[in-house]
């Protein structure tokens, strides 16, 4: 039987629960007011992807603040619905549903991983919601209301692989995370190797949870390639670079995933990242005027967030896509999503007064047919002290959907994802 003390404690505990629930209930259910535009920003600030998701959230808010300070979009102030999905796909589904059907967001930015994108795409498609997916990914999404504006694997690997082939030789060994993105990127390495007169000596796929790379390092030593292509993903895989340096493995490594997203070159002691070449559309160190000059993107970001550790690849994509949205709305003259999508499909360029140029470079363009971006790509090399140098840069258009597949969303509305194995023999 309960004595006085435990029943009092029990009472306190259950009333705490009830109070908490009631309080939480008060904060729920906010519908947007009709004369402001509401944008949904669902980015991870806790959980596995917090490291890479947090800068995305911050950069979106930076763009929104700049736009609001400048009078908003067509005179309307932007309001934000930005809960924390906690790197949890079920949470993403719930919050996306809420964003679309309760908060009535006019546009949605959501998710880091491709799995998240796929988890919420049914909800997005059902509601025909305008959706910007801003992470680098494997490519191939041809979807009427989705704008995958991050760089694709073909664009990224297609920048760095030819450069390394020229510099170091034709023999490649691929190491990749053992899931869709890693496997598809490895397929692209085979396609690009074929196009650049190189050979893939071997491929190795490593589960996302793996932290021990000793056998991988031995396999690389056995294969003895001219350079390694690495599509390792996540915190666990970061230890590869540490361990390879400690084992004395000194081979050049081309990557689409390291440094630009998780700033390993700042987190790991030199010289672990020496001779790593990142093929990316953006890193904090990209030397363009709009990025590194005084008052440029980097300055503005750290003014707003002085404690932020790094300004990563995806953050820049979140940033410029916000301006693309603004430009499209002002072109369309309305916030209605079908019209804005039409405006986006007619071609958006940045570098005007109402939509400044993207920090990665002046020449980027949104390809209306495929909803992807022709990016300005860079090859960024880290040296022994982890200083970053841009060794090559050029504009790389998206070619897989536009040329190989023939996806044109202006002509035919689709909701598909295409993969290289269906189009290239050598990817099999």
């Amino acid at each position, binding site marked *: 039987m309960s004595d006085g003390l435990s029943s009092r404690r029990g009472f306190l505990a259950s009333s705490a629960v009830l109070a908490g629930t009631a309080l939480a209930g008060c904060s729920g259910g906010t519908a947007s007011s009709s004369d402001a535009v509401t944008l949904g920003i669902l980015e991870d600030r*806790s*959980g*596995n992807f*917090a*490291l890479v998701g*947090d800068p995305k959230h911050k950069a979106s808010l930076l763009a929104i603040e700049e736009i609001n300070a400048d009078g908003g979009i067509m005179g309307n102030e932007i309001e934000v619905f930005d809960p924390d999905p906690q790197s949890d796909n079920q949470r993403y589904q719930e919050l996306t549903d809420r964003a679309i059907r309760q908060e009535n967001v006019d546009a949605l930015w959501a998710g880091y991983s491709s799995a998240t994108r796929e988890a919420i795409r049914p909800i997005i498609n059902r509601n025909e919601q305008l959706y910007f997916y801003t992470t680098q990914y494997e490519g191939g999404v041809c979807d009427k209301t989705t704008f995958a504006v991050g760089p694709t694997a073909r664009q990224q690997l297609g920048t760095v692989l030819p450069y390394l082939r020229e510099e170091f030789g034709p023999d490649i060994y691929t190491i990749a995370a*053992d899931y869709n993105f890693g496997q598809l990127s490895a397929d692209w390495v085979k396609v690009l190797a074929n196009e650049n007169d190189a050979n893939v000596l071997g491929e*190795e*796929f*490593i*589960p996302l*949870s*793996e*932290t*021990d790379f*000793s*056998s*991988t*390092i*031995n396999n690389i*030593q*056995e294969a*003895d390639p001219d350079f390694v292509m690495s599509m390792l993903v996540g*915190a*666990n895989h*970061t*230890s590869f670079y*540490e*361990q390879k*340096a*400690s*084992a*004395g*493995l000194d081979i050049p490594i081309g990557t689409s995933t390291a440094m630009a997203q*998780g700033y390993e070159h*700042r*987190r*790991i*002691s*030199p010289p*672990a990242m020496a001779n790593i070449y990142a093929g990316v559309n953006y890193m904090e160190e990209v030397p363009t005027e709009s990025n590194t000059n005084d008052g440029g993107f980097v300055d503005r970001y750290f003014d707003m967030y002085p404690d932020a*550790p790094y300004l990563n690849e995806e953050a820049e994509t979140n940033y410029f896509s916000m301006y693309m949205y603004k430009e499209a709305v002002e072109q369309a003259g309305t916030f209605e999503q079908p019209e804005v999508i039409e405006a986006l499909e007619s071609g958006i360029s940045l570098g005007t007064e109402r939509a400044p140029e993207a920090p990665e470079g002046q020449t980027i363009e949104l390809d209306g047919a495929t909803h992807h971006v022709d990016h300005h790509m860079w090859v960024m090399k880290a040296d022994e002290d982890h200083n970053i140098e841009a060794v090559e840069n050029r504009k790389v258009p998206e070619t897989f959907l536009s040329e190989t597949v023939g996806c044109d969303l202006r002509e035919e509305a689709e909701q598909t994802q295409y993969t290289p194995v269906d189009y290239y023999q050598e990817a099999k």
Partner: protein
Amino acid sequence: MVNGVNLFFQFLDSFGFIVLSAIGLAIIFGMMGVINLAHGELIMIGAYGTTLSFNAGAPLLLAMAVGVISAAAAGLVIERTIVKRLYQRPLDSMVATWALGLAMTQMVRIIFGNSLSGIGLPLGAIQYGQFSYSMYRTLLSVVALVVLLGAYVVFTRTEFGIRARATIQDDDTARAMGIDTDRMYTATFVIGCALAGLTGALYAPALAVVPGMGSSFLVEAFVAVVTGGTSVLLGTTLAAGVLGTANAFFTNLYGTFIGQVAMLIVAILILRFLPTGLSGVVETVRGQMERES
């Protein structure tokens, strides 16, 4: 084709990793029946303590000591406030420690951010032919053996150890004989946490130091503890040996994914066919041999 020398090094690496992942958990579970689901977070605290001190300028060994002490201190607080109320309720201790781990991971994220600058792996590489292996990671397998040996000595040869085992076997009698059982439980728990902290401290140079890093040790820890069976130290050693061999062998042949799966399947088979665990088998055999002689 299996490369013998590579396989040997990979086995040592796997063995060391499994032993160090499991030892803290094994002591707490084996001796007290408490399933500490915050084990990963205690490893994380050890790693954070080490990395923060190292980045503040301390030499590596001192930084590691700081890591161990941080984890031990955390263990002390946890035991005094939470775990001691849950000794008769092992399943509730599981839920409570899981909840605690959740809160701890997020608090560390809030206070220290999403990651810390890492410590580099010291000691360079062992070269053999066209291959090389990290000296440090090979050393960790030796450290693992030392830890096992040390724990054995403490729990069988010291007064403290004998009292601790007495308490755990029959705490009423132990108390009747004048042993302060509360302090024994606390001490054992703290030792388990200190060992978890040691694991974190030792692996901090080899891994990315992020709030969620503890979870990469959990699978191996739990699997080893359970396949090890009733005798804590013997069980952990045998489990690490068997599972490490399975892991290294299949990884060497087919890659890390198959290696992981093979290890887990071996564990399931052991659990199914040897319900008292690997150490249970050894003790049965030893008992039989004693009877026959």
